[in-house]
C-alpha cells in the first residue's frame, strides 16, 4: 500500500460519513434503500481492512496444525476443503469443528457483526 495520506481507512470513513449524514436523509424509496446497502458494503470493507490481517494469521496457524505442513492461508484452506470433500478427515474431528466455527465467526465479524445478536 502506498504511504500517501489520508490512508484508505480514513477516506472510507469520510465517504461513509457523507453518504450517511448528508445524502441519506435527502433520499426516499429505491435510492434510499440502495444507498443504505452501499453504506453497509463500505463498512464491510472497513472492517475487513481492520480485522482480516490478524484473522488470517491465526487462521493460517490453525490450518498448519490441522494439515501438518506450512503454506499460505488460501492454499491451506483450499486443501482443507478438498480433504473434507474427499472424506479424508472425519467430520466430527474436534479441531476441524473448532476451526470452522472460528473461521465463520471471523467472517461474520467482518460481513455482519449483528448476526451474533439475534
Amino acid at each position: 500500500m502506498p504511504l500517501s495520506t489520508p490512508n484508505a481507512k480514513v477516506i472510507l470513513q469520510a465517504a461513509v460519513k457523507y453518504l450517511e449524514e448528508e445524502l441519506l436523509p435527502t433520499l426516499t424509496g429505491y435510492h434510499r434503500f440502495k444507498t443504505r446497502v452501499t453504506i453497509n458494503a463500505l463498512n464491510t470493507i472497513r472492517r475487513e481492512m481492520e480485522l482480516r490481517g490478524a484473522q488470517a494469521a491465526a487462521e493460517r496457524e490453525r490450518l498448519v496444525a490441522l494439515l501438518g505442513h506450512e503454506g499460505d492461508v488460501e492454499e491451506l484452506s483450499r486443501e482443507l476443503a478438498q480433504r473434507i470433500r474427499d472424506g479424508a478427515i472425519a467430520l466430527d474431528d474436534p479441531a476441524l469443528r473448532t476451526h470452522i466455527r472460528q473461521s465463520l465467526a471471523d467472517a461474520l465479524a467482518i460481513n455482519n457483526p449483528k448476526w451474533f445478536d439475534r
Partner: protein
Amino acid sequence: MSTDDFARNLRVAVARHIGAPGTIHDLQQLTGGANRTTWSFDADVGGPRQRLIMQLSVAVPDDVPHPLAEISPHPTAEEGARLMMAAAKAGVPAPRVRAILETPDGLGPGYITDRVDGETLAPKILREAAFGPARAKMTQQAGEILARIHRIPLAEVPYLHGQTAAEMIDAQRKVVDFYGLHLPAIEWGLRWASDNVPKNARHTVVHGDFRIGNLIVGENDGIRLVLDWEIGQASDPMQDLGWLCVKTWRFGGKLPVGGFGRREDLFAAYEKASGHSVDPAHVRFWEAFGSVKWAAGCLRLGMRGIEEMGIERCAIGRRIEEPLWDFYELLEGRD
C-alpha cells in the same frame, strides 16, 4: 413494446379471457425481477370491477444459457398457473387463476390471478401488535395448508420436476464447483448432508419456498394466500416443513417455525391434517440442509453481483456465512 401497445394488448387479453370490455384501471408494476415482472390492476369485465394481478415471465435470450440454469428446474409460467389451479382444487389458498396468457395475447408468457389484500412483510407480521391474532393461528394453518399441498395428485401436475434430497445436494455441489469456491464450512455442510439423507422419504408435490414473504397474511385471519409457486417440484414433503424453520426465514423472530410458532405445534397440525406422522429428525435434516442450500444461493446471487456490478447482489454474496453459522448452531442444539 411501447406502453400504449402494452396497455392495449392487456385490455384485449382481459376482454378475451375474463370478460368484455376489459377496460384497465390503476395499472402498476409491483416488482421487476431478472426473470419476471408483477403487475397490479383493476378491470371492468361486466359486473363488479375485478381486482387482478398479472405475472409475466421475461424472455431470456437463449444464445447464452446460464450454465447453472438446469440446476434448479422451474415450471414454466403456464405450468406454474396450472399448479396453482391444482392446489386451489386441493383446498390450498392459492391465487385464483383467471387467465393463462397465450401467444396471440402479445404479452409474453404469464398469467392473471385475482388480487388479495394483506401483508407480506416479515417485520410487520412478526412484530406488530395488530398481527398478534394472525401469529396465534399461522402455525396450525401452515401445517394444514402444507398437508393439502402434499395431497395434490402428482398425476395432475406431471410436468413438475422431481428432485430427491441426494439430487438437490448434488445441485448445490455443482454451484460451489462452478464458482470455484473452496470453503471448508460449506464442504463440511455438503458432506454432512450427503451422510444424513433421510431414508423412507415420500414423494409428493412440494411448494419449495413456503415461508413469510411468500404468504399473504391478514391481521385477524392469518394466512390468506400462498404465493410464489415458481419452484414447485415433486420431492420429499418434509422439505417444506424444514424450510419454514430455517433460521433465515424466521426474520429475527424468536420462535423456530417461521419466527412465529413451535415445531411441535406445526408437526401436530400437519399430522392431524395429513394422516402422516412427522419424524422431527427427518424435518431437522431439511432445516439444516436448507441453510447449506441458502449458503449456495448466496454464492450464486453474489457472483451475479460481480457479473452485473450490482451492489445488492454483492451484499448478498457476503451473507454466505450467516446460514452456515446457523447450520452449525442447529447441529449443536442451539436454535
